[in-house]
């Protein structure tokens, strides 16, 4: 027992000695002080913190390769300017000059290392005239150039499906918009607006495609109402709403002074925002931003249209 207790005493005092000898070095290093062996004194240092996306890049400090890979903390740097180079295989290197200040950390944590050859992936399987992405439903739409058919795939270009045969418009349509219930698509050029049911299973045969013609003014934009049945058409001289059916009568929502007024439709609240010019009392014309709330609860336009058309509500 005595010998064990002696070993234990040695261990104990050794542990105490190690603690008190090394603690000042550990604390000073943690606090950003570097021990200057030549002058036998502590000098205040700084550090560089590097974080890259993706991680694992080699770090060169003033041309010297360090052991650490990103994310990396380069400690005990004397104040000054340092050249940093980050290298990761198959990625563009990243270089910069970093200024280190005493007692400060230079934080470089938003570094993106870009691929030398970005792995872009082609999603479409055939040539198309138009394509757009529906983020909400994680789908990509394509209008085939050869047969004018609307296709859909997921965002990896998989699970292709044919949605609809589109009617040809001449000149070619400038925009395509799928209704919020994903049952119909509208597309338009300057004078014509076509509506086609998306019926991959031919479930909507009764909804035959049709074209609305606007011979006397240009179509600037068109939007689906959230009900998937009404269309808001922004023309060069007015904004009107119409039902998505042949020979529907439109209701004018606003007369526009400004041709080609830009408009935006918020489908979450069924609100139309548009820009128009108005003459003020001082005689000058100013651009104004307007909004029309189109939700059934705030805008009784369905009743209005029914009264005008004298037709039953759809």
């Amino acid at each position: 027992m005595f010998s064990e207790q002696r070993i234990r005493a040695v261990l104990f005092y050794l542990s105490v000695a190690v603690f008190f000898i090394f603690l000042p070095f550990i604390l000073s290093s943690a606090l950003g002080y570097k021990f200057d062996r030549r002058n036998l004194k502590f000098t205040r240092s700084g550090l560089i913190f590097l974080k890259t996306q993706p991680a694992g890049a080699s770090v060169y400090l003033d041309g010297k390769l360090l052991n650490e890979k990103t994310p990396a903390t380069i400690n005990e740097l004397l104040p000054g300017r340092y050249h940093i180079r980050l290298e990761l295989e198959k990625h563009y290197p990243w270089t910069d000059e970093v200024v280190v200040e005493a007692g400060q950390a230079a934080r470089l944590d938003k570094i993106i290392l870009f691929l030398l050859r970005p792995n872009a992936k082609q999603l479409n399987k055939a040539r198309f005239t138009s394509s757009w992405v529906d983020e909400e439903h994680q789908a990509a739409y394509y209008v085939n150039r050869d047969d004018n058919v609307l296709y859909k795939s997921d965002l990896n270009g998989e699970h292709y499906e044919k949605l609809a045969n589109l009617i040809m418009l001449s000149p070619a349509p400038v925009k395509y918009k799928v209704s919020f219930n994903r049952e119909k698509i509208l597309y338009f050029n300057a004078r014509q607006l076509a509506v086609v049911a998306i019926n991959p299973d031919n479930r909507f045969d009764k909804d035959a495609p049709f074209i609305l013609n606007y011979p006397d003014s240009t179509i600037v934009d068109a939007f689906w109402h959230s009900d998937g049945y009404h269309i808001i058409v922004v023309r060069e001289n007015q904004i009107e709403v119409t039902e998505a059916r042949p020979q529907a009568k439109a209701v004018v929502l606003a007369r526009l002074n400004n041709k080609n007024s830009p408009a935006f439709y918020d489908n979450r609240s069924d609100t139309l925002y548009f820009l128009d010019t108005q003459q003020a009392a001082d005689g000058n014309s100013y651009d104004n931003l307007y909004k029309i709330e189109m939700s059934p609860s705030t805008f009784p336009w369905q009743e209005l249209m029914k009264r005008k058309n004298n037709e039953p509500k759809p």
Partner: protein
Amino acid sequence: MSWGIILGLVILAAWRPVLCAALIITFDFYWIIRTLYLTTLLVLAHQKLYRQKNRNWLADCRALSADKNWQDIYHLIIFPVYKEGLDILRPSLAAIRDTNYPKDKIIVVAAFEERHGPSREMAKVLEAEFNDYFFGYLTTMHPDGLSGETRTKGANATWAAKAARAFLDEKDISHEKVIISCFDADTCAQKEYFGCLTYHFLTTPNPHQASYQPIPVYNNNIWHAPSFARLVEISSSYCQMIESMRLEKFVTFSSHSMSFKTLVDIDYWPVDMISDDSVVYWKAFIFHNGNYRVVPLYITVSMDVAYSTNFLKTIAMQYKQKRRWAWGVENFPFVLSRFFNDNRIPLRVKVWRSFHLLESHVTWAVWTVIITLLAPLPVLLGGALFHQMPIGYNLPLITGLLLKFTVGASLVWILLSRTILPPRPKDVHWVKNIVMIIEWSLVPLIILILGSTPALDAQSRLMLAKYMEFYSTEKKRKVV
């Protein structure tokens, strides 16, 4: 004090994050050194246990000089029982029967609690089975609600010891020749245990001024216990082995032995405190003016791993058991008040022992909290300025280093754990050997749940005067 340290660090983390981080780094470094030191002690204790594993202690007793006649020594073994069943008690008594010490020098007391319904029935069964093997076999029924008592194991053991004293006096056996062992109901003594104990009693200077502490291992059901419970109990054995190397602060724990004369002199175990196993040491320490010590016995006594029917119940059970152990913090006010009124113990000894006692309980209550919960606080609460300073980056690095170091140390613990395991029972598949290595990956989870929280809980209860009653840990043993 523990709450003071924790709350102080939380306030510092927001108010002076750099100072808080520096304190945490200091603690982390201290913990690394401490882990290294204690792991080395554990290795030394293991070595000693291994060396004495196959020692024939009875032969060593016989080889002692004539003035140290081992045949004069009687062993009185008390088993305080509460809710433990026959499946637990029978193997413990059988283990005493199967020791190589002459049974005509052994007196066994099965100490039951009268308030527990099946006690009398069990007492009869055991008496019928074991009465004829020993010099004396006594059954005691501790009455409930005696004046000045609380429902603790110490109260039951004291009642049994008084009955044993009457028996010894009747047989005209000197108290000086009797060594008493107070064993938990599930304690199975090794074949050589009483030989080892007798040898140490006869060779220790002033043997009445010492307690004798075996190494508790939880081998009875270790192969059948779930990983979580097994690891916790192995850690408990480790703690005890480490403590056995730190003689100046070694205190009795769980099953232990001492001179019956001393026990009578100090008026037995406390009858109103939960931590009777350690308080009895302090009573003796004060009675002998500080000239009292615990002699480690490098021989194991085997107990049960406490576990229940499912994982959550096992955690709850282990938590309660550890909280009961942590309730040992009640020793501190007990010891301090006695020290204060005592002028025979040197002041240096009083200060040193009080410090040890306080330090061990405070460290127990705060270490996990500091390492896991408080370490990230300066980074979280330190604000933008702290994030621009080198210490803001170095604090997580050093904390991470501590974790890596702990993983490294746990490799040593894994190796050592293999050496104290009993042979694999036939009904246990060999794959369990691999499971018992992989399960060490649960250590962080155990540290998080059972590291500091039971101690903090116990200390909070003591602080708020919400006193605990003795909680008898449920024991399960698979019948093979």
